[in-house]
């Protein structure tokens, strides 16, 4: 086993189960649609809330799609073999998260303009929304992978994972929706974007190590 062969295997596995990525996107669509249907469909309500709504939906769908990230591998004993492989577990985890991120983010970015239009997001905010997504989503995935590793041995992970992980998503969500509001009010938002990027960077440093620690503790 090498890093490259693991990377290839992960890509292949994700490509085989590509319906999974599609499902994650459709999940995102559903959550976005839930808001106008469940709460208020008027532009007055939706327009200022659009950025927040999209970010909430992204956060939920990232969590739900990451939840099963390690589960199959855990049950089948693949994680055991990864630990025993002699390769550095944090790097392996980083590879896995990277593959997931790559597969999810691009389609999400394509969907964003459509949904921001449907939620009446002013079009000058769109670019800020996309920037926050680009800068913040690595953080979401990296933090999420810690949660997935923590809950891997539990039969009912999704719920617990939301509980554990959402609090850590709050800063990203709050800064992002603040940035989107800032541009609507004509205020500067560069600092907020920098903060979001900083969180993602921090996650990049911390997450692989944490994830592999959790995995090691879970595999018995």
């Amino acid at each position, binding site marked *: 086993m090498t890093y490259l062969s693991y990377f290839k295997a992960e890509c292949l596995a994700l490509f085989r189960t590509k319906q999974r990525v*599609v*499902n994650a996107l*459709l999940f995102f669509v559903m959550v976005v649609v839930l808001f106008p249907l469940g709460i208020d469909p*008027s532009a007055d309500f939706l327009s200022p809330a659009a950025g927040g709504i999209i970010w909430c939906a992204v956060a939920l769908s990232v969590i739900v799609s990451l939840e099963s990230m390690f589960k199959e591998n855990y049950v089948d004993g693949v994680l055991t073999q990864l630990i025993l492989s002699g390769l550095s577990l944090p790097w392996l985890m980083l590879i896995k998260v990277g593959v997931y991120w790559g597969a999810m983010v691009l389609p999400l970015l394509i969907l964003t303009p459509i949904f921001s239009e449907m939620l009446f997001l002013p079009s000058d905010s769109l670019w800020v929304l996309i920037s926050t997504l680009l800068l913040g989503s690595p953080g979401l995935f990296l933090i999420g992978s810690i949660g997935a590793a923590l809950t891997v041995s539990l039969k009912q992970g999704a719920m617990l994972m939301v509980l554990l992980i959402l609090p850590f998503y709050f800063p990203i969500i709050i800064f992002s929706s603040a940035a989107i509001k800032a541009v609507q009010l004509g205020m500067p938002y560069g600092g907020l974007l920098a903060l979001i990027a900083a969180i993602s960077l921090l996650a990049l440093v911390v997450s692989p190590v944490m994830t592999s620690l959790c995995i090691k503790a879970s595999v018995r």
Partner: protein
Amino acid sequence: MNWVWFHKLGSPKWFFQWASKWSTPVFYLGLLCLLVGVIWGLVFAPTDYQQGETYRIIYVHVPAAVLAESCYLSLGVAGLVYLVWQMKMAPIFIKSMAPVGAAMAAIALISGAIWGKPTWGTWWVWDARLTSVLVLFILYMGIIALQNTLEDVALANQAAAIVSVLGLINLPIIKYSVNWWNTLHQPASFGLTKKPAMPMEMWLPLLISLVGFYFLVAGLAMWRMQSEILLRERRSQWVKEKVMNDGV
């Protein structure tokens, strides 16, 4: 009432042969009608005195919207038939029809959204009709996702049939609920629901285009069903002969 046709329809072999005879002519007839209707609509139909030329989008928008609904109705009926009689053809029909229906819903959504921009000044509003088409599209995508995700064929059949049937119950409810929901705080939106009294010269090409869409969808569905039948009946002798001899 003679039920022979019903039992015949249930036989993949009989349906395949029937469809090989009819699918191509029906498809081309549909294409022809569609072309006639659209060209008539685009080139010859008079300009609308209110909307100007943009109204010409109607010649694809309305047929696609109607088809999206009819296709779902047919899915629901097929699902019911499968659950009650376990008829082999029903899941084949559902599997073949779902993507076609999804495409029709997509056309209705896209053409409507583009039409909305010049007439309403926005691509999208959360209006009763639009929302119910969006939900319809999502239901189609759900059925497709289910069929792609479940690997066991028998399970996929059952699951798709159940979701189709439930959708059938859901459809009037969602329509009703959405209507109610909308009118509560947003009455009389854009007169979309009021039937415009169209002059004959505008209405006739619309009718032709609608008929064209129907035939086109029927032809496509038959083609798709034929492939599906071949795949599922692969162990029967007639399929083997058909594939090896004339390549179909």
